[in-house]
């Protein structure tokens, strides 16, 4: 619909056009709703079950008219003289056999569908009607009306609808329709109204209600045009939920043998139990179909209610996103070929001082064939990062395990004198105070620090773990790194020193853990791990690119961008473009992050 371009500001739509818009919007909305609903497989199953029951209800009169002779197949007085004795097991003539009185079980089963269906639908509609109206009036008028209706609801919670209906059905002979109406009123004014009222109260606080009021709308208009439409989804959920209770109450009354209704699944069970003494056997062919029918009938409505609940939930969009995220998580990892290649174990020449750093150490280059040869021979420990605790060898990570990580690969160039070259000095903290603590604060673990390059991993977890956390933290860390460098550069400018250049690239993906045993002289006291991953390589390439060409911009990989999803609003994105990485198949899109709108929550600092 390109209405915006074709219409002038003062032109109104004709009635037909308005209808067109309405239909288009309605169709789109229905499509969206169906997309959410159909995601719940059980809900679709419930809908199929309901369709089956409707089909059963329709089929019975047709079958009686065409195929089944009424004398034999009538659900109440039919009897098959050809078979003896009754009850008989299933046979071609009687697909579910016959009961003790010689009636066809399938015929009774089908005939009982119509009243139950009628009762259920009546109960559902009455519940929705009564509940919605009561809740709307209560929420709109408040005060006395609200107090009255709320207390009425409390009252009916003391006398639960199913229980009352069992008692009522026990004493009075009422038709399925009446049963449905009474049940609907009781349930609607009770629990359903309570749920709907609290929802209506939140609707009443929305600005459009105030707008309607200012425009001079009366109660009738606001309730019918604004309040009720917003309550309908939730009302439909609850009306479906109440059916379960109604079906059970109805069936239970019949099961106790108190209802005079002949056509009821509950009375089929009752008959079966009653004639058990006569037959001295359990008539499973009567019991199972009727009990299954009543249970599946209730289940169908329950499943549909769950599906509608998904649709009505204001968090549906979020849930949809979650589903997509989860699906992606369960995708096979890009580099999951878990080969049994033995990684050449290299004893690092410089083992980080001693046992106090034993935890949270990632030593050595990830793997010689992934990283450029310029990578360090020595390494710097990460210190006690909060997340570092999970990195320890004996805690979670096992060699050969696939973990999910987000890599931040950063490089700081130091232009200046040797004393300023932090890479030359053993402790990085000296030259750039706070760099190490920056990553640690954000939950990253410094994997390697050498020659002005830093590899940091975020969100490192074995098994099923959120990429989102790692991607989010690494992106924040990258931006903080730039801020840090910018602050440094200001100070350096005052002092007349040349400014630093920084570049960071972020990639997200699975990595495989390889064991590196270190130690000397036969002492294997310092176990460590190494990571290997295509994502690592992408991060490295991105970092090289940004530090060489586009200094001061943060580049993130396609995967990282995807995993940021719900957190994307925290950042400002710049350009994006395709990139081809050596050793990685296909063209990938690279995104630029230029700044952030929102800081990570203060709890992290």
């Amino acid at each position: 619909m390109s209405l915006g371009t074709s219409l002038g500001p003062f032109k109104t739509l004709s009635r037909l056009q308005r209808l067109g818009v309405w239909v288009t919007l309605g169709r789109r909305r229905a499509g969206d709703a169906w997309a959410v609903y159909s995601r719940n497989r059980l809900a679709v199953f419930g809908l199929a079950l309901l369709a089956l029951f409707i089909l059963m209800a329709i089929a019975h009169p047709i079958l009686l008219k065409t195929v089944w002779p009424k004398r034999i197949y009538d659900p109440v007085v039919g009897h098959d003289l050809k078979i003896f004795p009754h009850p008989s097991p299933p046979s071609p003539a009687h697909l579910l056999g016959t009961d003790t009185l010689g009636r066809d079980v399938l015929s009774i089963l089908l005939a009982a569908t119509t009243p139950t269906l009628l009762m259920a639908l009546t109960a559902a509609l009455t519940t929705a009607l009564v509940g919605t109206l009561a809740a709307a009036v209560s929420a709109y008028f408040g005060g006395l009306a609200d107090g009255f209706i709320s207390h009425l609801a409390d009252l009916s919670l003391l006398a639960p609808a199913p229980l009352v209906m069992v008692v009522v059905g026990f004493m009075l002979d009422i038709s399925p329709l009446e049963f449905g109406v009474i049940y609907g009123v009781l349930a609607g004014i009770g629990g359903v109204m309570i749920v709907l009222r609290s929802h209506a109260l939140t609707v009443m606080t929305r600005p459009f209600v105030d707008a309607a009021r200012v425009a001079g709308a009366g109660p009738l208009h606001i309730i019918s045009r604004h309040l009720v439409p917003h309550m309908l989804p939730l009302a439909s959920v609850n009306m479906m939920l109440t059916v379960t209770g109604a079906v059970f109450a109805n069936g239970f009354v019949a099961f106790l043998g108190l209802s005079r209704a002949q056509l009821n699944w509950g009375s089929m069970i009752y008959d079966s139990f009653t004639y058990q003494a006569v037959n001295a056997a359990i008539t499973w062919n009567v019991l199972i179909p009727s009990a299954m029918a009543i249970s599946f009938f209730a289940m169908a409505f329950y499943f549909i209610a769950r599906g509608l609940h998904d649709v009505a939930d204001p968090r549906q969009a979020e849930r949809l996103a979650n589903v997509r995220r989860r699906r992606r998580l369960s995708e096979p990892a890009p580099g999951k070929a878990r080969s049994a290649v033995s990684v050449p174990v290299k004893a690092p020449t410089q083992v980080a001082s001693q046992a106090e750093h034993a935890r949270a150490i990632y030593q050595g280059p990830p793997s010689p064939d992934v990283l450029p040869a310029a990578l360090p021979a020595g390494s710097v420990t990460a210190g006690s990062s909060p997340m570092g605790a999970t990195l320890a060898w004996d805690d979670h990570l096992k060699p050969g395990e696939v973990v999910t990580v987000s890599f931040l690969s950063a490089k700081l160039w130091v232009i200046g004198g040797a004393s300023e070259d932090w890479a030359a000095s053993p402790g990085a903290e000296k030259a750039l105070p706070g760099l190490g603590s920056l990553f640690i604060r954000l939950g990253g673990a410094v994997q390697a620090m050498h020659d002005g390059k830093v590899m940091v991993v975020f969100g490192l977890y074995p098994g099923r773990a959120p990429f989102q956390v790692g991607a989010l933290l690494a992106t924040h860390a990258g931006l903080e790194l730039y801020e840090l460098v910018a602050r440094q550069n200001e100070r350096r400018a005052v002092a007349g020193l040349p400014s630093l250049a920084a570049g960071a690239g972020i990639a997200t993906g699975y990595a495989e853990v390889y064991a590196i045993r270190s130690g000397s002289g036969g002492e294997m006291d310092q176990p460590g791990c190494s990571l290997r991953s295509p994502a690592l390589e992408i991060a490295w390439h991105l970092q090289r690119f940004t530090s060489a060409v586009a200094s001061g911009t943060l580049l993130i990989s396609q995967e990282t961008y995807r995993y940021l999803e719900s957190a994307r609003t925290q950042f400002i994105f710049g350009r994006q473009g395709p990139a081809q990485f050596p050793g990685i198949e296909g063209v990938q899109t690279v995104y630029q992050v230029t700044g952030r709108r929102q800081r990570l929550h203060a709890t992290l600092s």
Partner: protein
Amino acid sequence: MLRYLLRRLISGIIVLFVFISLVFFAVQTILPGDYVSQFAMSLSSKEAAELRRQLGLDLPLGQRYLDWLGKLARGDLGRSYSLRGSGPTVIETIRATLPATLLVFGLGTAIAFLFGLWLGKVAAWRGPGLLTSTITFGSIALYTSFPPWLVFLLTYFLVQKLGLVPPHSLQARVRELEFLPEDIMTQMVFGLVAWASLLLIANALLYRWRRLRLPGWAIILLVVVCWVGSWWLAGIGVYAWNILLQAALPLLAYTLLSFGEIMVIMRTTMADTLYDDYVQTARAKGLPERVVRDRHAARNALLPVISRLVINLPYLLTGMVMVEEVLDWPGLGSSLFFAVGMQNVPLMMGLALVIGVVSLAARLFLDILQALLDPRLRSRAEFSGRAL
């Protein structure tokens, strides 16, 4: 907080009063005939008139209502109708049947709640998959299975085929004993409540002083051990154990019927919290997965489950009544059908009162629980006075 609960209690009592008054009039105007015409059909018309006079059924309805209220104010629920004029007092009947219901209802609800929560938590944490679908489908299938059918299946397989559970013959077995079964059941119910609250309070104190917390399963285990152990200390061990065996079948049936809804709601709300910011923060802080799941995600998912339980409680009670009726468990439910069938008005009123009080108490308990778990509610309640 206390004021809020007090207000809630008072409004609850007023509602309860209106409720029983309504029941009183509804029962006697809507239902056809009265006790004498429905039950004492063999009497001659003169005898019938005499019986009506004895039972007070000849008085006008308003008069009878006022009489009943007057007695109620003095704590007297009257006597059941009987052909001899008046039967056992209603309070006696309630004392004999309430413990049986409370034992199964309380214990069953607790088990169903804990089991449903645990199952929902696990299902949500695992994410979509075959196991989760199976759990969900199974829970809903049990929840929506027709109670008499489920009870029949349980009886058929557990009692008749496997002989695991003794058939329900509570009255027959325990009748000649020195204790009445209802007295033992009362002790059992109180013991369970006492031990559970004692251990929970101890756990809270332990946390306050030592920053230690017992894991959930340990508390449950301790409650069970202390509960069962205390029977033997009180000298009712064998009888109580017997009663528990008898109660196993109704307990199992009721629990299986009830836990499904709790599981489904828990799973849905928990799945929503999994991607909430505070869960991500907890993960990012490096907390172990178990702590993130139990302390951060599950805690917050618990609230909607409890508020749903408040609304669902009457339905659970209905399921309980159905199970009792089918299994002949000597509880409130079976007495209710007995009373309604004969239009035994005093008994019916007494039972309605008890059902009202039980559901009121359960709702009040859930209100307190909700307020304890949700700090927002405590402060909001001060202002609005109504939680729902």
